[in-house]
């Protein structure tokens, strides 16, 4: 697809914004650290204040990186889903991938007591939660994919996704009936979403899988553009539909699955970011959209996190509350203003 317009200016603005938000995110928090010192800390200059240095490197930096990964990863996976399912309402959340992850985590956290004994300790470790969430997300995505072959109507798929959501909540309430208060609390807190408590090791693992997902999505740019014509046309243009679809699905589940696994179910970002991006970049060309969604997702997530930190206070709000509070009105506003969701 040709770049009939160049988008250098908006990309430059987004790039600068990302840097600003990145440093802003690090500088804001319960302890406010001036921009200058944040910057110095990066250059390697030991700041006058040793504790600031510690806060930045052990806490805020991993959090900011996580925010970038979460925002860009979920945004990109939402974009992939919207194009693949030819539906502007698609996203990892709507299609039940997040529900699948939640179910996996619920089974591990709250099912642990059922297995009992030594196994319980193994099961509730961070890594088993991560694996459970990934498997849960992937299974749901596969089911959705099989369904998408059976039912041609995309609306049916969304309903199937919603059904997964209610099945998840039903199973969770059943499990919570039998589980301890401690386990329940663990699950609920996971459900709030959190990008603040990743260690460098965890961040490293998240980054590797995320990078694979992003690379696959980049190799799918041409495929995604072809899919804009509909599957029959795409096939007539020589596209191997089954293989391309599988690649897109794998990319999405790697991105959405692992992000949900490490940061909890962050909602709305996957759905809202692609639409917000289309407002700025009025194009369907994924060669433009994909990097734009990537940058925009990262920026929005950094801003959401900065707000959730409630600057200069000790409180931290659940990140999910912030993303929904920003995401939902934006979607409504877009619908009312444009009357139609273009994609």
């Amino acid at each position, binding site marked *: *697809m*040709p770049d*009939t317009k160049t988008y250098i200016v908006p990309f430059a603005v987004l790039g600068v914004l990302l840097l600003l938000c990145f440093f802003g995110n690090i500088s804001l928090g319960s302890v406010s650290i001036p921009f200058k010192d944040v910057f110095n800390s990066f250059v390697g200059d030991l700041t006058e204040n040793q504790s600031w240095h510690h806060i930045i490197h052990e806490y805020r930096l991993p959090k900011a990186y996580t925010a970038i990964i979460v925002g860009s990863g979920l945004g990109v996976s939402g974009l992939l889903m919207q194009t693949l399912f*030819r539906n502007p309402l698609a996203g990892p959340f709507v299609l039940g991938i997040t529900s699948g992850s939640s179910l996996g985590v619920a089974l591990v956290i709250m099912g642990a007591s059922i297995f009992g004994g030594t196994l319980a300790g193994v099961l509730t470790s961070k890594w088993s939660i991560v694996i459970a969430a990934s498997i849960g997300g992937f299974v749901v995505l596969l089911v959705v994919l099989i369904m998408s072959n059976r039912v041609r109507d995309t609306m049916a798929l969304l309903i199937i996704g919603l059904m997964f959501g209610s099945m998840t909540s039903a199973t969770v309430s059943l499990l919570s009936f039998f589980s301890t208060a401690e386990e329940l609390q663990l699950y609920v807190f996971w459900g709030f979403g959190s990008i603040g408590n990743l260690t460098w090791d965890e961040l490293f693992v998240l980054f590797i899988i995320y990078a694979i997902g992003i690379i696959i999505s*980049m*190799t799918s*740019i*041409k495929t995604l*553009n*072809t*899919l*804009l*014509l*509909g599957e*029959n*046309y795409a*096939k*007539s*243009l*020589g*596209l*191997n539909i089954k293989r391309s679809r599988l690649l897109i699905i794998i990319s999405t589940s790697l991105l959405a699955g692992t992000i949900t696994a490490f940061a909890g179910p962050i909602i709305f970002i996957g759905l809202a970011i692609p639409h917000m991006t*289309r407002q700025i970049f*009025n*194009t*369907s*060309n994924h*060669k433009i959209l994909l990097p734009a969604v990537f940058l925009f997702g990262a920026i929005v997530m950094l801003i959401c996190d900065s707000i959730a930190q409630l600057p200069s206070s000790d409180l931290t709000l659940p990140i999910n509350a912030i993303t929904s509070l920003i995401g939902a009105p934006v979607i409504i506003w877009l619908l009312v203003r444009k009357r139609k969701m*273009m*994609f």
Partner: protein
Amino acid sequence: MSLLEFMKKNESHIVLKTEDLVIGYNTKKAKSIIASNINIELHKGELVGLIGANGIGKSTLLRTITGVQRKLSGHISINNTLLENYSNLSLAKALSLVLTESLTSKNLTVFELVALGRQPYTNWVGNLSDKDLQTVNTCLHQINIDDLKHKKCYELSDGQLQKVMIARALAQDTDLIILDEPTTHLDMYHKAYILKLLQRLAKETNKTILFSSHEIDLAIQLCDTLIVMSDNSVITGQPCDLIEKGTFDNLFPKDFIVFDNKTGSFRVKK
């Protein structure tokens, strides 16, 4: 030139050929045959119309020829290569389509949409080479839609959109272009316009253009060859020969309309 050489030369001009083709659906329980004994030979630069009543199997035939649906038996070859020997990509370079389904995304510009026709030739990320850009511009010019170039597809009328879809198929640079009912939803003027356009394209580009249509009188006037599907046969021939043979008389039940040989069109019974 010996006779053999002549035949070989002639053979190479056949773009689409079917031999004893049987089309239909293969379900677990039984075969349901929709049409059989289909022998078609389409040559370079021909405009070919496929006509027949609703439900007679025009779409099934087109779906089978384009490889969307499996044939029941017989042979289909495009440019002397059997259809089943084509890979997805090589088929995309031999055969392009204009379908009835609406576009998934109408947020594309006309230029972007036509440029998607170059996909079989572009690299992994879909970058257009200078040659691709040139081809796209030529195609836009051939269809007279240069001025629509930067418009978004949702801004277009049905007639304009159909022209854009034809330009896209043209940009795919294939010997054979197949269109499924390209004139539905169009008014009388645009029906004639589109078919006239197809006729000109076939002549100018020497491509073979096959389309299905219900515009029998227009097809009779414009096509080089007609494929007429009726209940028990698939007949191919030049329009005037078919009129003489009375092929159109059996196209529809005779209770309401009759074919008038003099005007080459159907008349309502008074």
